[in-house]
């Protein structure tokens, strides 16, 4: 049977029956509640903290109670678990009030008075001067020379806004401390990240920290780093109070104070020769990191490596920096730095085409990369790039070129149509040498005496279906029924560290280890006996070495590819758009389950459309203005149309059954395709997303 043939998901029954236990559902004997007292200023020194009279059983947990280091371990460690003497963003956690009654805990937290000596805050990317990461790397000749020889140089600047992950289940964790051992249960993507952070904060070794992922109601990157913070906070509180401590953020608190997609400012300077051919591109990318570095360095790396898009440009010069501000810290969100760059480069290419009097697709076709081409970090596109097949499929499904030609004719009347196309890639797995040097993933398959097996890996199912796809690979490899393959939510006492659930790596990297483990177990299979096999990460030997400082070499072993087409009708009276058709064509190597993969595509594309159109989040004096689902709009079913989705098989040997990274890819291309469609319908050029009706209507009301 083809591995893509859909099956009933491993967690279907437990979720559909309502029996799945999220952190809010699972009771802990003797538990009490915790609520954070948060900073009300964006930047300042804490002068005094005046607690209300705390009734018996109510406790304030502060930086002084941290047994180990009061610093959150992410890549490096900058953010305090509880703010000590300084707060760097509005909403930063200062202390926790705990106690048996949640209403009382909230009252006591609200009545805690903190006074500050306020400092001048940095409240926008434009004001920022301090970086927490920066890079510069080039390919080909010196850009000064290229610009000096150019017949024409075109420069444009693009901006992108925040995006909130909007997972259905807010952040939450329970900390337990007993017999010198800290345990954290919660909604999370990366149990071992939480474990490493907890070890540092609690001053405990590997054997004295246990992390358990509870069924998780969506993550989208939002539960990559933040569960480590909330986990450490409840662990410290549990040790101080002697009770399990439960903290679940409410929606407004979650939206205002947890990491989001980085706002960005991206400038391109493009050199054209006398025959209107691009000879070089200089890109400069600034990301708003927020108050603490967190994951920003790694996010920036992916932005930079996506800066030139799917184009083979002879000379490139790329700089980028993650800038510190006194705004909420930004982190991971599906796409991880790539959506900003792909929006910018795709729109830049469209704009150049229009300037040259060419149709965008014809212009882009002159530059699309192919197998063997050199990447912007002077790595290699080692594998087949199926852009020609994807274009052919897109024409078949959407009739893009004839619609483009039709809508290009002058339009009159209130409603006008436009169609836009984008081409994007996703570099598969962690950027650079992280898999080899830091993660070093390990998996186990345990075989029981009854000849059923259990997968032991630390990747969490956050709705993306990894329990099912892992199990399918193992069942297929062993030649046993899927029902004989068991997989539980990861518990670090039981599973080895197979790395985090991020970077679209779980299936390709960890799935491959499971495929290999299954093959070994099959070869060694002893019916009726208990057995265990373990597999370790092997770095692909074809890869060019990665130099992280020079930003040089193969940043990724391979790439997955996506083509998006968005067709819409623009209301010139309101600036609003109505989708007419949306198409996504994806090369994810080989999809391991068609239903799961279609789900990924539908969800990712809709999130991408939201990012490009209506998901508007702004800050004023450091405060997030849209901190509820009433004011922060994500698209509903009414706002969309059934998507046309197709897959191009292009198997990669380094992934199980040929699978490549798929989860993030699906989000990245929708925003630039939407933008391009609005540009065609309106006849205007835009430089910013979300491309809200406000921006569109203001452009339409300009004369001329």
């Amino acid at each position, binding site marked *: 049977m083809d591995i893509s043939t859909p099956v009933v998901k491993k967690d279907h029954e437990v979720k559909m029956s309502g029996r799945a236990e999220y952190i809010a559902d699972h009771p802990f004997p003797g538990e009490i509640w915790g609520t954070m007292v948060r900073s009300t200023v964006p930047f300042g020194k804490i002068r005094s903290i005046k607690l209300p009279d705390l009734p018996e059983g109510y406790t304030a947990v502060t930086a002084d109670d941290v047994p180990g280091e009061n610093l959150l371990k992410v890549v490096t460690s900058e953010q305090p678990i509880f703010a000590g003497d300084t707060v760097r963003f509005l909403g930063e956690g200062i202390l926790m009030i705990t106690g048996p009654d949640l209403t009382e805990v909230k009252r006591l937290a609200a009545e805690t008075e903190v006074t500050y000596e306020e400092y001048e805050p940095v409240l926008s990317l434009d004001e920022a001067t301090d970086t927490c990461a920066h890079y510069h790397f080039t390919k080909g000749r010196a850009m000064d020379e290229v610009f000096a020889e150019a017949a024409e140089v075109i420069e444009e600047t693009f901006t992108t806004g925040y995006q909130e992950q909007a997972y259905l289940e807010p952040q939450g964790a329970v900390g337990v401390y007993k017999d010198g051992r800290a345990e954290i249960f919660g909604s999370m993507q990366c149990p071992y990240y939480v474990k490493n952070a907890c070890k540092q904060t609690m001053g405990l070794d590997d054997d004295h920290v246990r992390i358990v992922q509870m069924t998780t109601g969506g993550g989208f990157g939002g539960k990559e780093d933040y569960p480590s913070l909330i986990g450490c906070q409840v662990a410290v509180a549990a040790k101080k109070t002697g009770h399990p401590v439960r903290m679940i953020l409410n929606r407004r608190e979650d939206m205002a104070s947890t990491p989001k997609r980085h706002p960005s400012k991206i400038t391109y300077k493009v050199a054209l020769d006398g025959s209107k051919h691009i000879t070089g591109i200089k890109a400069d990318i600034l990301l708003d990191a927020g108050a603490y570095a967190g994951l920003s360095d790694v996010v920036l790396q992916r932005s930079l490596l996506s800066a030139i898009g799917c184009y083979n440009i002879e000379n490139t010069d790329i700089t980028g920096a993650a800038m510190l501000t006194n705004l909420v810290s930004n982190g991971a969100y599906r796409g991880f730095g790539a959506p900003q760059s792909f929006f910018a480069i795709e729109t830049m290419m469209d704009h150049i085409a229009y300037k040259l009097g060419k149709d965008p697709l014809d212009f882009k076709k002159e530059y699309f990369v192919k197998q063997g081409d050199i990447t912007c970090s002077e790595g290699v596109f080692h594998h087949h790039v199926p852009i020609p097949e994807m274009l052919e499929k897109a024409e078949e499904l959407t009739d893009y070129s004839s619609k483009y030609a039709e809508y290009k004719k002058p339009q009159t009347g209130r409603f006008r149509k436009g169609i836009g196309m984008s081409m994007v890639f996703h570099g598969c797995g962690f950027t650079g040498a992280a898999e080899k040097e830091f993660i070093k993933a390990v998996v186990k398959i345990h075989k029981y005496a009854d000849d059923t097996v259990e997968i032991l890996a630390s990747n969490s199912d956050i709705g993306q279906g990894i329990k099912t796809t892992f199990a399918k690979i193992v069942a297929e490899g062993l030649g046993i029924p899927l029902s004989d393959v068991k997989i539980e939510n990861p518990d670090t006492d039981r599973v080895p560290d197979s790395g985090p659930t991020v970077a679209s790596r779980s299936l390709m990297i960890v799935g491959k280890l499971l495929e290999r483990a299954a093959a070994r177990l099959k070869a060694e299979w002893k019916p009726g006996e208990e057995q265990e096999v373990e597999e370790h990460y092997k770095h692909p030997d074809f890869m060019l070495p990665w130099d992280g400082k020079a930003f040089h070499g193969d940043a990724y072993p391979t790439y997955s590819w996506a083509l998006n087409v968005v067709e819409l009708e623009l209301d010139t009276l*309101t*600036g609003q758009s109505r989708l007419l058709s949306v198409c996504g064509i994806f090369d994810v190597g080989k999809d391991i389950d068609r239903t799961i993969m279609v789900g990924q595509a539908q969800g990712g594309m809709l999130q991408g459309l939201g990012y490009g159109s209506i998901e508007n989040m702004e800050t004023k004096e450091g405060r997030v203005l849209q901190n509820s689902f009433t004011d922060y709009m994500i698209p509903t079913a009414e706002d969309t149309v059934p998507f046309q989705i197709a897959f191009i098989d292009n198997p990669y040997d380094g992934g199980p059954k040929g699978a490549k990274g798929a989860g993030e890819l699906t989000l990245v291309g929708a925003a630039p395709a939407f933008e391009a469609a609005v540009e065609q319908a309106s006849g205007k050029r835009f430089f910013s997303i979300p491309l809200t009706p406000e921006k569109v209507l203001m452009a339409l009301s300009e004369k001329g």
Partner: protein
Amino acid sequence: MVRTYYPDTAYEAMKARSEAPGALLVSGGTDVMVRKPAYEAVIILNGAGDLAEIRQEEDGSLFVGAEVTYADMMQDHRIPEIFRTCIPGIASPAIRNAGTMTGNICNASPAGDTLPVLSIMDAQVVIGSLDASGQEVSRTEGLLSFIQGIRKIDLLPTEVVLGVRLPLSNWERQNVCYYQKVGSRRAESISKASFAASARVEDGTIKDFRASWGSVGIKPVRFPDLEKKYAGTPVSDLKARKEAVTADFIEGIHPIDDQRSTAAYRRQVSANLFSDFIDSLGG
């Protein structure tokens, strides 16, 4: 402990309000659930059968009881056509199955979806209470004077809003109707701007002309003097002077910037929709 009343009739509802003056009246409850206000007493109206009626009154008015839901309105052929444009844009099917127009009025949000429509219909709010001897007394109040500000209405602690009176004898002669809501998305969205208008066009001349804007002020904005000024104008004349006429009205609109939109956008959309309404006039 919160005292909760479940009156079966309008009379009992008024009795409950006199027993517990200032008690929270719940008519649908779709906004109360979100706002979670603290009250000592709550009167849940949805069991009051006589408030769930739509009835034709002697003068041709249509009375829509306080417990008539949006979904009920969509099912009733006597409800004016303009509501069929307005109601499907309100929130979601679940909200429309529970929410009421009276609730929308008493909520007194600047973004209330039905308010511009009710405003051009000259709708009246029907209010009842019990006097000292327990006799029912009622009064009516025009929509725009009943709504006094954001979440502020002209209702005494012992009064109950019984419903809305739509003076249809006058409305039915309007032969052009226009309504548009502009939200951030197509469902579950609070309006950034909304616009309702109607006109009676006879022999190519505007006889009666009404326009109201929502979400651009604390309550729906209407300009009776300007409406009078342009009544009697030939449609062709109005269309020829469209820009000036639009400017005349829009000058009086002073929207604000907030977390949902900008003042500039609200103004521009308000002007564009008004202008489109003029274009839509026949003759």
